[in-house]
């Protein structure tokens, strides 16, 4: 829209948008600030906004006391593992649907999405039971597998939409050049789709990192990722705001940063291409 905008109007827009933006962001900002306060200052009345004694003590306390490293590692392992595993399974499937479409391709894609809409609680007990049967309860591998299944439809879907943008002639050229199917996917399709694969990776890592149904219900002390670790902080008593904030900040900071990179793909990934 090439419209003439007065500076005055632009200033009003800017002021309004920044006010709303900061208001929405405020809970996160406040949590981050609180994490650098002492417990006493964290609950001070009136609250102290910036001029407190900055300390990183809460971080070291959280790290020492709660075995934070293991929860963090579990989160990374589960989110990363499920995403990578999902991509390995989804790339060939998306190749098939994008480049060898049949009458059923659309139905298969929609069916895959529909599995994503199955309410988790409806199948909670069967999964719980199966996990006990196979000794997978509180096991990072079991959880990785479940989260892979949960996100597989989105991964297939996203890769499919990215692959469809690659001209089929290039893959045919590879075939004419003597490439086997494996070489075609490995040396031609995958490198060309790197940007799409990267965004798929990113978004699904975020979704898996924040998943809070199966991670809470299928883990105990051993395999618990950060979601479950944070939930364990819900004991209401005591002076713990600063430590809670430090733990929270550590749990969300990496994802906030990754998330900002993935905001464009977010729309595509979460609306299944229905909004562009």
């Amino acid at each position, binding site marked *: 829209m090439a419209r003439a905008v007065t500076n005055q109007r632009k200033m009003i827009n800017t002021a309004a948008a920044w006010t709303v933006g900061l208001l929405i962001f405020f809970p996160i900002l406040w949590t981050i600030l609180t994490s650098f306060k002492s417990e006493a200052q964290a609950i001070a009345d009136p609250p102290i906004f910036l001029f407190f004694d900055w300390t990183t003590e809460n971080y070291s306390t959280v790290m020492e006391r709660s075995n934070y490293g293991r929860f963090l590692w579990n989160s990374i392992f589960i989110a990363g593992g499920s995403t990578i595993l999902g991509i390995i399974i989804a790339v060939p499937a998306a190749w*098939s649907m994008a480049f060898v479409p049949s009458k059923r391709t659309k139905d298969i894609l929609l069916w895959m999405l529909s599995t994503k809409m199955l309410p988790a609680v409806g199948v*909670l007990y069967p999964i719980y039971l199966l996990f006990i049967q196979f000794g997978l309860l509180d096991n990072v591998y079991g959880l990785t597998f479940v989260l892979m*299944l949960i996100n597989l439809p989105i991964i297939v879907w996203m890769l499919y939409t990215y692959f469809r943008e690659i001209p089929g002639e290039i893959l045919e050229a590879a075939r004419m050049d003597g490439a086997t199917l494996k070489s075609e996917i490995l040396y031609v399709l995958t490198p060309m789709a790197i940007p799409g694969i990267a965004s798929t990776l990113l978004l699904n890592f975020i979704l898996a990192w924040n998943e809070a149904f199966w991670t809470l219900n299928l883990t105990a002390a051993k395999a618990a990722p950060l979601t479950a670790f944070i*939930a364990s902080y819900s004991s209401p008593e005591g002076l713990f705001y600063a430590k809670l904030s430090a733990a929270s900040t550590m749990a969300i900071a990496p994802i906030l940063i990754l*998330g900002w990179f993935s905001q464009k793909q977010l*729309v595509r990934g979460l609306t299944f291409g229905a909004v562009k």
Partner: protein
Amino acid sequence: MATKASRSAARVMMAPAVVLLLGWMLVPLIMTLWFSFRTYLPLRGGDQGWTGFDNYVRFVTSSSFWPAISTTLILLIGVLAITIILGVLLAILLDQPMWGQGVVRILVIAPFFVMPTVSALVWKNIFMDPTNGLLAHLWRFFGAESVSWLSDVPMLSLIMIVSWQWLPFATLILLTAIQSLDGEQMEAAEMDGASVLSRFFYIALPHLSRAITIVILIQTIFLLAIFAEIFVTTGGAFGTRTLSYLIFQRVLESQNVGLGSAGGVYAIILANIVAIFLMRIVGKNLD
């Protein structure tokens, strides 16, 4: 590009994904269906045999069923209303020319990336705690009595927390939709003498209707399944027990698997009704 060889290769390469998802769908689904027709109390006698539709009847006639339904609906409608209305306004605001648009966008989107347990816990303690919470400080500053948010107005509190998490999602999608609105169409309407309001109602809103529908459907599916926020804040107390949470309690807390499974079947049916509408829209977009 479609030879017999490539078609059969395609089938083979699709197989792992299809088989895994089929298993993931069918195995638990069939087990849930099976349990729902049985009296199954793992801690009190285990599987006690066939009961027909008893569990289904008991689930809907239990005293907690209708409150759970109404809680679910209140939460759903409250969050949808807030996120859609604020989302539209916010999307329009963010679409205006301004300085630092990129940064504001990032600020607005951020809550979506906060893990549910963190946002629930931070809101519960740091903001809504009746003595030390920031909101309590604020209320006292204005001389008002501080509020016990999660016990006095539990649904309002829950709706606030969940809306804060989902507002970015609605805004982002609606903003994407607004940006695809043809600027010339707006200018033409302006030339035709349409006021700002009529331009909004006759051009922008109809253009957004599809995106709004999608936001409603996707959020509905996620909101029906909401769990961690309730688990962390109230644990289902104070009338915040939604249908999903009720099923969770029946299955894992009171270990009445038969009853919980019947509830699960209801939840699956409910989600599928919403999903059908979403699939229609998505499917149309595929062609």
